[in-house]
């Protein structure tokens, strides 16, 4: 379906990534957010609080992130599209409810504008050190989708994508920004509403008698109902059967948890978004994401100026990890160079997918600023040796 024009601020804007993310959420149809202030993410909900009363929605500032991360899920089951926004310490507090959203198959979006950690760390400065937490932070086995924008324009475009994936797969989607992308101001073009594709909720058309809340028809994503529609359904974070009833047997656990995993894994090719450039014939491929990809570009340009064959692989979808593509590239290139604003997170995935077929060189950084392009250049030079 097309976007509701009321939420779409069509035009050319000069705004930062946080504000662009808010506009993306509104364009995607989000009419509810529950939040708790935390630097450097707060501008997203500040703008939402100002904008949403004009388009027919609600913002509520909760008492903490525990509350924010479950209030939004209540709103989803009440019939809204909803999201919350946070940064490291708040993201840590939200972990239980990310697992709850995965288990109950609540479509929603968690935005994490990453800052330096651990703990209070560097509230106003960037990092990319929550990437593994985004994937593994809640207990138990589950799958999520995570997207990483590298510009305000992508903060707009990919926030819509995040909501669309959330609805298509009934899964919590992690929108992994960082402080620099959040606070960087650039041109953002917002198209007319009729040019924005929005994925509708997978709402059941069955009658209350026929409806099975967690029954599936082969595509692994069950149909949803909202409270107040007469379905009288039950939903629980306990292991449950197709009726949504608790059923704590190893058989039900196996069936449910494998389905939660497979609905994402089987669709990985469709979820995968990446930017590739100069890959053909490259000796070295720089794998990056988020703000680091923009610094990496400079390092790649410097290396190419020296006549080196360097390719660029920018992950936009970070989870599920593009392991199939990395495995293919490992057959062709000699080495991967992986710069990231952490002491080595996604590089482990690159190394795993490369399976020893290509060298993997991490360019780590503890956060607080971005890399210097020379650091990436040096790693490329090392890789060609």
């Amino acid at each position, binding site marked *: *379906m097309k976007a*509701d024009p*009321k939420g779409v601020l069509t035009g050319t804007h000069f705004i930062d990534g946080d504000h662009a993310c808010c506009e993306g959420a509104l364009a995607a*149809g989000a*009419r*509810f957010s*529950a939040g708790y202030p935390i630097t450097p993410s707060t501008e997203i909900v500040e703008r939402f609080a100002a904008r949403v*009363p*004009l*388009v*027919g*929605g*609600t913002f*509520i500032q*909760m*008492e*903490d992130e*525990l*509350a*924010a991360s*479950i*209030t*939004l*899920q*209540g*709103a*989803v*089951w*009440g*019939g*809204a*599209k*909803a999201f919350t926004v946070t940064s490291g310490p708040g993201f840590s507090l939200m972990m*239980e*409810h990310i697992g*709850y959203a995965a288990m109950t198959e609540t479509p929603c979006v968690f935005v994490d504008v990453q800052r330096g950690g651990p703990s209070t760390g560097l509230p106003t400065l960037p990092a990319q050190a929550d990437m593994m937490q985004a994937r593994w932070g809640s207990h138990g086995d589950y799958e999520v989708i995570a997207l990483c924008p590298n510009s305000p324009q992508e903060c707009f475009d990919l926030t819509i994508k995040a909501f669309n994936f959330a609805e298509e797969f009934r899964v919590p989607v992690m929108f992994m920004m960082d402080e620099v992308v959040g606070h960087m101001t650039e041109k953002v073009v917002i198209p007319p509403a009729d040019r924005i594709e929005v994925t*509708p*909720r997978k*709402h059941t058309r069955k009658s209350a008698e026929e409806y099975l809340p967690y029954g599936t028809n082969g595509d692994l994503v069950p149909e949803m109902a*909202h*409270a*107040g*529609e*007469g*379905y*009288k*359904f*039950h*939903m*629980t*974070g*306990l292991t449950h059967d197709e009726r949504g*009833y*608790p059923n704590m047997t190893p058989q039900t656990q196996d069936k449910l948890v494998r389905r939660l995993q497979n609905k994402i894994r089987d669709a990985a090719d469709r979820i995968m978004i990446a930017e590739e450039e100069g890959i053909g014939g490259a000796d070295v491929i720089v794998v990056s994401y988020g703000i680091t990809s923009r610094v990496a570009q400079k390092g790649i340009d410097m290396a190419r100026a020296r006549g080196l064959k360097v390719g660029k692989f920018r992950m936009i979808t970070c989870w599920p990890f593009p392991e199939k593509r990395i495995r293919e590239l490992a057959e062709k290139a000699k080495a991967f160079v992986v710069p990231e604003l952490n002491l080595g997170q996604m590089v482990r995935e690159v190394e795993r997918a490369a399976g020893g077929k290509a060298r993997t060189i991490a360019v780590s950084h503890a956060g607080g600023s971005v890399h210097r392009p020379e650091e990436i250049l040096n790693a490329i030079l090392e890789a060609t040796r």
Partner: protein
Amino acid sequence: MSELVNPVERFLRTDRMPHIWCPGCGIGTTVNCFARALIDSGIDLQSLALVSGIGCTGRVAGYVKLDSFHTTHGRAIPFATGLKLANPKLNVVVYSGDGDLSAIGGNHLIHAARRNIDLKVICVNNLIYAMTGGQTAPTTPGHAITATSPYGAFEPSFNLPHLLEAAGAVYVARWTTFHVRQLARSIGEAFQKKGFSFIEVISPCPTLYQRRNQLGDGLDTMKYYKEASKVRNGSPTSEAGLTMTGEIVVGKFVDRERPDYQTMMTAQMTESLGERYIRPEMEHEEEGCGVCG
């Protein structure tokens, strides 16, 4: 001869029986009172949603034939807040235990009362963490033996009606599972209120609390509730504290009017934005489901 059917049966997921609660437990009694209140109030069941947290009382959501949500530990109230705000036409009941609502969920409890979110909260207080084996709760009275206070509890306990009155609830009552008619009537009254209503139900846990403290079985506890309870409607909540074997002050303590969250939000937004303000529920009415296409 026609088959006799219990009038509350149609409110229950009978395909989930038998339930998990122990013999002598009071939670089933409270559910019966809740169902009676639904019958008496004639409330529309389609617009009624029930939200529970985790614990023995948290399992209520799984047994009622309503849109029912079994959420995470302590977070029934914020989930219910989102549900209510996204669809203001819903009547939302939060049904959970003392540990869930007042310990891990304590912050949400006081803030939802402060905001005066239109929720009906039924708090079954068995004075203990029962599901996990009988540990000390914020409501455990002094000297009581629990799994984590083997030499007797000594932390001062919460007086929940007092806390909720101070936090801003518009309706506060307390009954025991002996007071089935009064409890059903109170639940019905709460449905008539717009705003945050809180009903505490003192309930036995014969398996863990009564047994460890040599307070007898379920029947002995009923006798204690009958003898020790003093109905004092309108009593100052500051005088409603509980001890292990002393008086239990019951009754309706608070019944007042305050604008609820959505009324205040609408008033403030209308004052600031005038006709530019689009109420979320208007949106819902005019265009149907904008989410589902």
